[in-house]
């Protein structure tokens, strides 16, 4: 079983500080970390490999420093890692990102399963997983909460929906995106850490994966960000209630009635 796990380096979440004026979160000086959902994707890849044998390859696209998350992937059991990094990839939206990743997956060759996290916590789009499936014309299952069965031919998964879940059987090769519920990620072993320090991580450029220049980076991205702005301030007139439980409850019930909930 050859498994590719697509991961992403994202800004870390800090301790929460609230701006007293706008009642919004203050974000500052962030470290870069592995996208939280991708830890579950990696664990699932390593777990499936331990059941069926084969190889787990971690793949990311990003600036040279994104190599750090690939080393982290190796420390928890990925066999090797590949970094897509080049100015030409810069400014990619989800169309261009999923195109570049799909070209890298083609170049890796004979891949049976692609695993992604549900979404990256910076962009929150959840579009790259299905995008890879579309570029490669593969079957897909998103929001996977459990893998029930897997063979070299097929995989049976539970997909979470707002109202419950369904069970579907995909023909391999396929793409799945996973949720936190799917497993409990292992912590790196000492051996894993050593391996992650020693390994060579190849850097692939657009020409290495046969990517057409007008389908990557800004040129390959149909969307453009016109502007960004802070979100509107929350209601800054906050009310604090202290008192007996009866008084507190009364205040809340009154609040709900005002808003026609009761």
């Amino acid at each position, binding site marked *: 079983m050859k498994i590719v796990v697509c991961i992403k380096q994202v800004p870390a979440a800090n301790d*929460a500080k609230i701006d007293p004026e706008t009642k919004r979160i203050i*974000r500052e000086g962030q470290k870069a970390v592995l996208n939280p959902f991708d830890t579950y994707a990696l664990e699932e890849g390593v777990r499936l490999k331990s059941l069926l044998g084969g190889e787990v390859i971690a793949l990311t696209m990003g600036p040279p420093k994104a190599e750090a998350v690939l080393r982290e992937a190796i420390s928890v059991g990925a066999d090797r890692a590949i970094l897509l990094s080049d100015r030409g990839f810069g400014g990619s939206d989800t169309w261009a990102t999923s195109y570049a990743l799909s070209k890298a997956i083609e170049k890796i060759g004979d891949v049976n399963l692609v695993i992604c996290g549900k979404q990256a916590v910076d962009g929150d789009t959840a579009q790259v997983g299905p995008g890879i499936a579309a570029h490669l014309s593969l079957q897909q299952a998103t929001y996977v909460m459990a893998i029930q069965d897997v063979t070299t031919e097929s995989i049976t998964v539970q997909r979470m929906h707002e109202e419950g879940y369904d069970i579907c059987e995909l023909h391999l090769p396929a793409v799945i995106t996973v949720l936190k519920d799917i497993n409990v990620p292992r912590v790196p072993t000492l051996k894993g850490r050593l391996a992650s320090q020693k390994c060579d991580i190849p850097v692939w450029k657009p020409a290495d994966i046969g990517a057409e220049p007008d389908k990557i980076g800004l040129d390959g991205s*149909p969307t453009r*960000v016109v502007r960004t702005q*802070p979100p509107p301030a929350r209601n800054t007139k906050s009310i604090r209630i*202290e008192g007996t439980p009866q008084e507190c409850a*009364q205040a809340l019930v009154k609040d709900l009635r005002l808003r026609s909930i009761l």
Partner: protein
Amino acid sequence: MIALTDTERKQYSNIWVVAEVLSGKIQPVTQELIGAAKELADARKSEVWTVVVGSGISEQAETLFAFGADAVLVVDDPGLARFNDELEANVLIRLIRKYKPEVVICGATSRGRALIPRVAVTLDCGLTADCTGLSIDPENGDLLQTRPAFGGNIMATIRCSNHRPQMATVRPRVMKAPDADPQRTGRIIRETVIGPDRENIKKIIDVFYNTESVVNLADAQIIISGGRGMKGPDGFKLLKRFASLVGGAVGASRAAVDSGWIPYAHQIGQTGQTVQTKIYIACGISGQIQHLVGMQSCDRIIAIDKDPNTPMMQMADLSIAGDVFEIVPEIIRQIPKL
């Protein structure tokens, strides 16, 4: 990517809404999207079309005229009874190529977020996820799509000038459903699933949907959410009682889920769901940033906690300093008296 020429772009017209269908029923987000689409269509002097893909949905399709649909494209086939991304994407791709809509919008639900990226990539189109605002640029008629990024800390406005259709998903409950006008009528256009649509699709073996009692987080008006301060599964039983009295859904922080007090499906925050309800009541949730990014876009935040200085208590519009185990039972006592 090669941009469309002006002539090519002008072949695209009308605003499409992809209906959300669950177990053979058109879901309320569809009407909300039709309301948003109507405003866009008015600005573009074009029509609202709704695409309804499912099994046994033909009769319901006609109810959508009342909300503003001018035409409803119906694809009614027993093979579409259960949500299958590949099959629905293939059907949509074929219909979009045939009718050339200018804009396609869809609910940002678990289904919409799986289906639409597949369609957009195949058609070489731009797609913006989880939009909270849609408008038409008066200068050139492009769709301007506003969405939160970085957990709601930045609002980004995105356009896609060179490709058609322009595609977006919109979260449930963000747009307001228009009042129904029963006098309104429109055209039904029937299409069938054809051979190539059915190629390379997975098997949906079984579905387990609880559509009766559980109000889902995405669709709720009010969420009663609990954290570490609820101390155990019994604390969540209390919140469930509270939620059932106000017709709300129960949410949870990661700490509560990881402690096994409530299933993951209820988790709100960075590694759970993002919610945008009218009212969010946080009970015993201190407000780690990973939780706040999942709920800070709710209209009104109410917090109940013993510790008055937590980030959640600071962010809340109404913060109640006190013991949840004394206050919540008192709320439950007071509600039926109304």
